[in-house]
């Protein structure tokens, strides 16, 4: 229902989003995954018609919305990355304000506000000022505002950044219910792999403004079907140890994580022996050794040479 064609945005000549092709079918939930600065928010801003693309196009049911955005705006709910609320007003007053902006009919609005507050679990705190809320509660109000006009498509830009696990679970559960019970189409942005794994049927992985991989979870994982992920723990990690491991022929990637090393290497029978030799050569002691199935995290590492939360 929504698709982009070579969508590009440049700020002062630097491309923040670079020829992104993307589509979103009705009733689908799609994840947009990428590290800080990958261009996720910029892509979303263009899709939601807040900024104009430098080049390329966004289409709704085959019609370009770059110069004619009203049709899309009507069916779109956007949860911005920042807390876009009046902190001096109460949760209820915020919902009422934005509901009135959306020209939701008076008789419906009151009911809608209450049901939305119920959904985000803040009905009993609605009279309190937003500035007195915890980060997680603010996030939930931030989402509630986008739901008032009953949007068909919901775009969420990192809705769980920096909040407590309880609020986070609540939000994830809520998004899942919106999709399953109301058939809402979801575009979910995050740099938490687990969330996207849980919620989304299809995933786009972005880095440096480009889509570097796309597909279902299993499709993405199959990128690494020829690879193994090996975790080893040693008594001390040195630079020369990492170098030595990197010199092993089959090894693609070495990632340091405290005393652990995460190694992505081509499937082969002698990789274990090579690793043991390398550790011995550096006079380190091997404390733990583990083979893992690759995760999306590993896919990302493989594709970019970086972890998601760099």
């Amino acid at each position, binding site marked *: 229902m929504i698709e982009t064609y070579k969508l590009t945005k440049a700020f002062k000549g630097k491309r923040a989003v670079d020829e992104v092709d993307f589509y979103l079918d009705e009733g689908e939930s799609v994840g947009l995954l990428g590290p800080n600065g990958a261009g996720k928010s910029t892509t979303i801003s263009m899709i939601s018609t*807040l900024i104009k693309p430098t080049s390329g196009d966004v289409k709704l049911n085959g019609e370009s919305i770059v110069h004619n955005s009203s049709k899309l*705006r009507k069916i779109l709910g956007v949860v911005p990355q920042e*807390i876009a609320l*009046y902190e*001096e*007003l109460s949760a209820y*007053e915020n919902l009422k*304000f934005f509901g009135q902006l959306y020209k939701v009919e008076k008789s419906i609005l009151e009911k809608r506000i209450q049901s939305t507050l119920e959904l985000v679990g803040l009905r009993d705190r609605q009279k309190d000022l937003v500035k007195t809320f915890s980060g997680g509660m603010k996030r939930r109000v931030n989402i509630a*505002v986008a739901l008032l006009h009953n949007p068909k498509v919901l775009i969420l830009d990192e809705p769980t950044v920096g909040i407590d696990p309880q609020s986070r679970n609540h939000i994830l559960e809520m998004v899942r219910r919106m999709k399953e019970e109301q058939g809402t189409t979801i575009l979910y942005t995050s740099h938490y792999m687990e969330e996207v794994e849980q919620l989304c049927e299809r995933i786009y992985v972005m880095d440096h403004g480009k889509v570097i991989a796309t597909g279902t979870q299993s499709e993405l994982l199959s990128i690494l079907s020829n690879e193994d992920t090996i975790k080893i723990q040693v008594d001390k990690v040195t630079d020369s140890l990492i170098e030595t491991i990197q010199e092993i022929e089959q090894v693609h990637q070495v990632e340091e994580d405290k005393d652990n090393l995460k190694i992505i290497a081509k499937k082969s029978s002698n990789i274990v022996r090579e690793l043991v030799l390398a550790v011995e050569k550096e006079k380190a002691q091997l404390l733990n050794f583990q083979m893992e199935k690759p995760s999306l995290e590993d896919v990302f590492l493989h594709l970019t040479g970086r972890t998601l939360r760099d």
Partner: protein
Amino acid sequence: MSTIFFAQLKKELRRPLFMILLIGASVGVTLLFTGSTQAPMQVAIFSEEVSQDVLDNWEEKLNGNSSFQFETKEAAEALEDVKEGRRDLAIRINNNDYQVVTSSEFPEIAYVEQHVQKAFHEEAMMKAAVSQADNPENMREELEGYLENPPLKIEVSSLKTDDLNNYDIKTQLAFAFALLVAMFLIGFRISNILKDKVTGVRNRILLSPISKTQMYLGYISYSMMIGTIQTLIVFLIFQNFMNYDLGDNFAMLVVITIIFSFSMASIAMLITGMLRTPEQFLAIYPSVIPLLPVISGAYMMPGALTNPVLNFIGDLFPISHAMNAFVEVAFFNPDWIELLKPIVFMLLIGVIAMGIGINLMERRSA
């Protein structure tokens, strides 16, 4: 538009302290610079020679047509008051002359003296005339009638010198400080646009079916309204609680204030349009605004500021035109036509600044 307007209002009512502080500041600063409230000056008259009846006559005569308040007192008490500094002066009435008893040297004393002298002069002429007449009683009444309704009247008019007699710097300063604080409130409320832009509220408004015009109208009309209300509150405080004479035409003051608020909201929009964050606004706006009344000559007598460069710069801002209009209303009793020029100037500044300001703002967010 009304949705945005009322959301701003709700926020204001939730924390009204800023506005109250501004109102307090303008009243406080005016009092600080002018020294006092504007109660009519009280002058004691007393005598050790003439009878109580004569003294009462003098009291009546002096109080007629005067901005001072004369009251008869016991000689000892009046002298004591002056000596102790409770009163600036007292008048000792004798049979044929008077004496001013004072211990200080205020400019007002000269005015009182002038006033008393005029009264004595009249009385002396009257006495002389009456003493020649056959029928003294009739003669006195006739003369008094003539004095009140002279058959011939010479009106001396020169370039406003006559008008300037009732000019009062205190009232002007009250206007100037009221406008100064209004500029702060109006500006800060316009800068809500910038704040909402940074928090993302503006994006949400833009995504809603409300048009941009409606959005801007909401912010602008709110700033105008709150600026006008604050200014009028300040005026009412001066007029009703401190006896400042703001002229006879409050409706004119209201109209000028509304137009000034619009014009100033536009200037604030222009400044806001050039900036990116509310922090920048907070740094720049309060350091620019206090200069405006200074270069507009708002703190000085009309016409005292003669530097053509400063005059030109001052005229680019609404405060100089609003001050002209206010001074006009308070002291010179103008009709609406005479206010047309400052009003048109303010509207012109408003429209131009608003156009450029909104344009800059939109370009920033493209």
